[in-house]
């Protein structure tokens, strides 16, 4: 009897070891490609390394100080916050609005939902070529505006400082529309019909119903949608292929600035420090956002 108990115990121990091995295989690889680069970032952020020389100096906190005083980074920071702020708010409003339009038994809503998802299937490299041929000076949009008698509105949308950022905000909202829509529709569909019926019997209708019944019940969808919105702080592809950060740095984002510092200007030490500070900012903002909207979620 005790022999069997011992063998069961040793089996359990073996099970634990094997489970540990099972996690450690993927985790080791993950650590090497995700966490280890962050550790090397930390080291090189205190140096003036250019990325290929064997020699570099320790420069203390100089790179970190530079992050908060270097004009190109500060303006990229401003651009990024403007972009993310607009994209997040505009996205949440349009997606939720469309979810309300398509919910509650609209025929053909699954067709619309599928069509709205289309842009998400394609790379920004592909979409950029199409949108460039639409937004450039002699592109489709301007030729449409001229035909419609609105020639004064026609301009080179991506090369004009006043409209370049606005165009990118529109493009990102255009592309991400279908994803948030699915999240909000799932949230709306999960509201039990009895709750809505009860609200209707109590006389809640239109905006009142939305504000006091629907919105609190889909707060969880909003949490996720806003979390994904905060993720656009990392925006790179769209800007890189559409404007390259121009005109005159008007659409340069932090991710693009870090890329340029590291791979164009060979200031790897500074790029590493910038990466770390930027990561901290993204982390704090994501945490605050999730905590704030979560506190608004209700159970039923």
């Amino acid at each position, binding site marked *: 009897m005790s022999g069997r108990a011992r063998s069961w115990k040793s089996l359990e121990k073996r099970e634990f070891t094997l489970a540990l091995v099972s996690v450690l295989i993927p985790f080791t690889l993950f650590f090497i490609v995700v966490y280890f680069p962050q550790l090397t970032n930390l080291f090189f952020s205190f140096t003036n390394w250019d990325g290929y020389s064997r020699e570099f100096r320790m420069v203390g906190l100089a790179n970190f100080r530079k992050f908060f005083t270097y004009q190109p980074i500060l303006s990229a920071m401003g651009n990024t916050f403007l972009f993310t702020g607009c994209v997040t708010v505009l996205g949440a409003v349009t997606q939720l609005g469309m979810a309300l339009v398509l919910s509650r038994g609209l025929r053909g809503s699954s067709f619309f939902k599928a069509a709205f998802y289309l842009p998400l299937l394609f*790379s920004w490299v592909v979409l950029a070529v199409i949108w460039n041929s639409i937004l450039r000076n002699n592109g489709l949009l301007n030729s449409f505006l001229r035909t419609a008698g609105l020639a004064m509105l026609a301009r080179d949308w991506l090369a004009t400082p006043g409209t370049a950022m606005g165009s990118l905000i529109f493009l990102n909202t255009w592309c991400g529309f279908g994803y948030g829509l699915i999240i909000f529709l799932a949230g709306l569909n999960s509201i039990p019909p009895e709750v*809505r019926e009860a609200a209707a019997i109590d006389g809640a209708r239109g905006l009142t119903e939305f504000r006091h019944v629907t919105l609190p019940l889909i707060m969880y969808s909003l949490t996720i949608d806003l979390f994904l919105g905060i993720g656009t702080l990392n925006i790179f592809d769209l800007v890189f292929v559409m404007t390259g950060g121009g005109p005159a740095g008007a659409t340069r984002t932090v991710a693009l600035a870090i890329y340029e510092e590291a791979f164009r200007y060979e200031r790897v030490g500074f790029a590493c420090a910038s990466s770390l500070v930027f990561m901290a900012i993204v982390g704090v903002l994501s945490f605050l956002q999730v905590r704030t909207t979560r506190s608004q979620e209700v159970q039923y």
Partner: protein
Amino acid sequence: MSAHSFGARPSAASLVLRYAVASIALLVIGVPILYGLLCAFKPSREILLARFLPTRPTLGNFSRIFVDPRVLRAILNSFLVCFVALALGCLLCLLASIPIARRKERIFGIFYFLFLSSLIIPTISGFVTLYMMMVRLRLVNSLLAVSVLFAANMLPIGVLIFSSFLKTVPFELEEAAKIEGCGFFRRIFLVVAPLITAPIMSLAVLQFPAVWNNFLTPLLFLRKPEARTLTLLIYNYTRDHESDFGAIFALLFVGMLIPFGLFLGARRLIEQSIGITAGGIKG
């Protein structure tokens, strides 16, 4: 007005309004994509005129790009990277998720936390020193190395999807197999994997377009022309053959066809997968 008619039978006016709003959005989303697809059938000179419909449709653009060996090479590279990345990625996620979902020890919770908290790390911030590291290890230009990078980057979302799904699958089957003497890794492949084919498919359909369309990773890590993926080739093509609009749009057409085909085949699954991911973030 009864509660029922409020919920299920909206008035005609509101229906018209709702269809109108949805149709306008449909135009805004669909017209640019349709325009891009139509341009593939126009001669280069006509594309410059910025008219919506082709006046003299042609297939000439396609015959021009398909005689280019770089194009076929890039398509092949893209498929290769996607296949290796998805297969290896699913395997790694499986190995990581089963202990995380089944074992009660604290250490597995820590692993879970470490996988998920990496979601907030900006991609670009790791790539700076990762690039320097790959150069040192002579792994730049290796399609296999890039596939492994993609596979490793699937882990946070994959562990999230698999482990939240596994918590809904009863433990008894695995327990029985264990008592019958079925070893740990055999159990993973013979007992657990068949039970979670649904989330495995979910992960694959969500990640296929992400890998196929990824731009920054090949841009940095695949530098020589023979190693280009299709997305990277399109980027380079638009810079090297700036005036050959016809060929560029034909390439776009090919690049869009494959993710679109997947979407047609797996639309429901993609939608459910987004739901599962969203549900996982909550948990």
